[in-house]
């Protein structure tokens, strides 16, 4: 331990003598580490944003959409026909063991009016389960109850964007708004969810009971039809099972067989988003890899300067060996010096990297995330660069012939 401390003192003295050179040598490591920290922070920020969006949709979700209609040999696109019913939703809820909650929806749009304010928005007919399926909480008021759905009441829940546009800062709960000229009582205000992964404003929405929407607002449709069914599986592990159960059930209910194409499609939302999360991870690894190239270049700079330093101090090495320094002592001395250089550079680089990430976050508006993990790894890596690139010069110093070293001018 005392040997190490001694090497540290000698190394610090050696670096103090050549401050400018030490700083310039460190610069490579500083830039390298700062780049790694900033790049990884940007990458991690992006991937956190995506995973936040995934959880904003709700977790372990399946989305059942109506299929296409085929008329005269022409196949329409997805959703060209209405094939899903409220009864399908109830059957899924009752018969699929891997399913935790089912939320059938119908979707329309129209103007909503409060006082002299009006706003056009999305109007969704939903059941009480919708909020739990989408992991959505209420900021104030209450959720629908089953009696709202059964009785087709004229109650509604509104999203933050709608509340902002109609009510400004005042509390909307208990107020009466007009949706397509029909008065509805606002019973709950949803908390803000922000953008969906597709960039849509999820808060620009009004929820009404499913039956109310079917019978009174979107009246042209047959009363039992639903636009889509959202299904939450009990856990991520049984998501696949849930998908199979739902498929089997719907095939049976819709009499889908080898002779007849399915008239619905099931989408696994979490899976789609997991792919985009994966791609953002790959992206951040790529950024990190590019940044580590500059760290590598910095390491070569360290090696270069250490070799120069060994040559310059050949005589000093000779003196040290002559008065009893062992090879190990010399090796340790130069290795310590290299590691001291890189770790000092590493610490400065970490500070610059954090500052850089913060700057990008505030100026460009990208989300950045500096984790303690990254910092620890970056520090360890800078020390590793010191050992790796310092070893060869240090070994060269330790293997000098003392007789020649003492004669070196």
């Amino acid at each position, binding site marked *: 331990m005392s040997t190490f401390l001694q090497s540290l003192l000698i190394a610090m003295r050696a670096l103090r003598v050549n401050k400018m050179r030490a700083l310039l040598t460190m610069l490579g490591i500083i830039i390298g580490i700062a780049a790694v920290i900033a790049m990884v922070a940007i990458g991690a920020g992006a991937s956190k944003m995506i995973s936040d969006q995934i959880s904003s949709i709700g977790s372990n979700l399946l989305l059942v959409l109506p299929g296409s209609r085929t008329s005269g040999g022409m196949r329409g696109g997805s959703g060209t026909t209405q094939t899903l019913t409220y009864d399908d939703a109830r059957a899924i809820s009752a018969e699929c063991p891997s399913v935790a909650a089912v939320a059938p929806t119908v979707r329309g749009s129209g103007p909503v009016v409060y006082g002299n304010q009006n706003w056009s928005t999305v109007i969704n007919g939903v059941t009480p389960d919708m909020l739990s399926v989408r992991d959505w909480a209420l900021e104030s008021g209450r959720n629908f109850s089953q009696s709202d759905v059964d009785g087709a009441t004229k109650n509604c829940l509104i999203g933050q964007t709608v509340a902002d546009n109609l009510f400004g800062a005042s509390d909307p709960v208990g107020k009466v708004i007009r949706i397509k000229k029909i008065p509805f009582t606002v019973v709950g205000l949803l908390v803000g969810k922000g953008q969906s992964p597709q960039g849509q404003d999820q808060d620009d929405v009004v929820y009404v009971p499913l039956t109310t929407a079917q019978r009174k607002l979107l009246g042209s449709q047959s009363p039992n039809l639903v636009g889509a069914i959202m299904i939450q599986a009990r856990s991520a592990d049984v998501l696949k099972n849930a998908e199979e159960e739902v498929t089997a059930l719907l095939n049976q209910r819709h009499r889908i067989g080898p002779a007849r194409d399915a008239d619905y499609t099931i989408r696994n939302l979490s899976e789609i988003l997991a792919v985009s999360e994966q791609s953002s991870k790959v992206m951040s690894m790529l950024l990190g890899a590019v940044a580590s190239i500059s760290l590598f270049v910095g390491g070569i700079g360290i090696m270069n300067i250490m070799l120069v330093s060994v040559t310059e101090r050949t005589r000093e090495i000779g003196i040290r060996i*002559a008065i009893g320094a062992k090879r190990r002592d010399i090796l340790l001395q130069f290795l310590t010096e290299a590691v001291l250089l890189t770790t000092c550079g590493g610490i400065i680089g970490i500070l610059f990297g954090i500052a850089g990430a913060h700057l990008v976050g505030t100026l460009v508006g990208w989300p950045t995330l500096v984790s303690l993990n990254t910092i620890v790894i970056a520090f360890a890596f800078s020390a590793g660069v010191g050992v790796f690139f310092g070893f060869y010069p240090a070994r060269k110093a330790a293997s000098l012939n003392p*007789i020649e070293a003492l004669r070196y001018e």
Partner: protein
Amino acid sequence: MSEVVCLHEVAKVYTMGEERVEAMKDVSFTVQRGEFVSIMGASGSGKSTCMNILGCLDTPTRGAYHLDGVNVGELSANDLAEIRNKKLGFVFQGFNLLARTTARENVELPLVYGQVPAAQRKLRAMAALERVGLVGRESHYTNQLSGGQQQRVAIARALVNEPSIILADEPTGNLDSRTTVEIMTIFQQLNSQGITIIMVTHEPEVAEFTGRQIIFRDGLVITDTRQAGRQAAATDEVAGP
């Protein structure tokens, strides 16, 4: 008196490319404890090679070198470093002090490699500096000292571990005649305190200060003479700074 150094038929052969250079051919001599020996000879005579072997910086090709009864030829590199550290003190022509380092820190250096605790290092370094008359200069950086003073720091460094021998390689080669006398006076004083000194020089007048002269030529010892009444260095210059 006991033998400190015993060279028995020591030879050193260098191979430089195709050429074989016999720097030393069967050199044998012994040095008793408390002797002050000068080794002389022209350049290429083998005296430097002899010095390197005596200093455990080099190993003989043939023959045996016993230092304090230990056969140096059988030791590992780490053991040799240990011997250089504990049993030998070096004084060089070019002083070979560490730059940008204080006198005391230079003297402490062998103790650093000898794992001596810091407090004790300081005490011993100060005692060694006192023996060479440099009290008050311990915090000076080496470049702030004159040549004679630097050489005295080097002598203090050689002394600090209480070595069996001090090996001096042309210690006065870079000094003027007055300073030469100063340094030789210190060597004589240390020798009179019982320290064994072996010094390489090519100046006969410097060799006159020693008690025994070994002269090398072509890798062989040609004369080995003891002089009873060695020349005393002027005593009034000893204490001077």
